């Protein structure tokens, strides 16, 4: 059983390493995601964010601008997910304490 576990782990690691050999090099400016136009001919949206983030919001940190302004409804959904997780711990765990006493 242990040999089978180690065999599965090694096989999975081999698959991951083989798949990662097809990724583009880190920091290469000729990557597809850094191009102005994708291979299907449409414009890449991240290009607009990089060029206009400071002019739109006067904020130098581009990550904050994308998370808080351009994609703010996405961040709102993320916060609602965290809030729901807290409420579920409130509902599931707090009742058992009252019953135990």
């Amino acid at each position, binding site marked *: 059983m242990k040999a089978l576990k180690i065999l599965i782990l090694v096989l999975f690691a081999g698959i991951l390493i083989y798949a990662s050999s097809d990724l583009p090099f880190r920091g290469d400016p000729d990557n597809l995601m850094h191009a102005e136009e994708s291979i299907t001919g449409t414009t890449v949206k991240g290009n607009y964010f990089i060029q206009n983030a400071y002019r*739109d919001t006067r904020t130098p940190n581009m990550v904050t601008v994308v998370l808080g302004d351009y994609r703010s*409804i996405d961040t709102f959904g993320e916060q609602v997910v965290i809030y729901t997780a807290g409420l579920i*711990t409130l509902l599931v765990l707090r009742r*058992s304490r009252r019953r135990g006493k």
Partner: protein
Amino acid sequence: MRDQFQSPIVLLGARLLSPYIMVFGWYVIIHGHYSPGGGFQGGALLAASLLLIRVAGGSKLAELQIQEFATTPLAVIGVVIYFATGLVAMAAGGYFLDYEALPIPGVEPDWLRYIGILIIEVGIGLAVMAILVMIYDNMVRGEDYA
């Protein structure tokens, strides 16, 4: 931990370290426009400073900081700050979460978006801090580990 006595060295270390972590958390939230960080990371740092006192000092000491019943309203306040910003912008004539329509007189649109990002970062920080502390408080079920 269950049958061990309280160590004064651990308590002293936690009490020394906790205020500086809290100040760094507020710095990460407020200064998120210029340096890496933001609402989520700063809120997690604030929660870490509160949880350090709760783990090391027990609930007697933690009652002096934020009591157990106060965490749920803080989480609601954090979510409502975010949602109300979007609703105010929508009531003032823009889209939902469109900070350029916020009704603050005498500020140009790009600086309005700057202020809007700052407001929602504070909301995210409050909500994340309160929810992480709330999960810990519900998990220990009133038992003391100190």
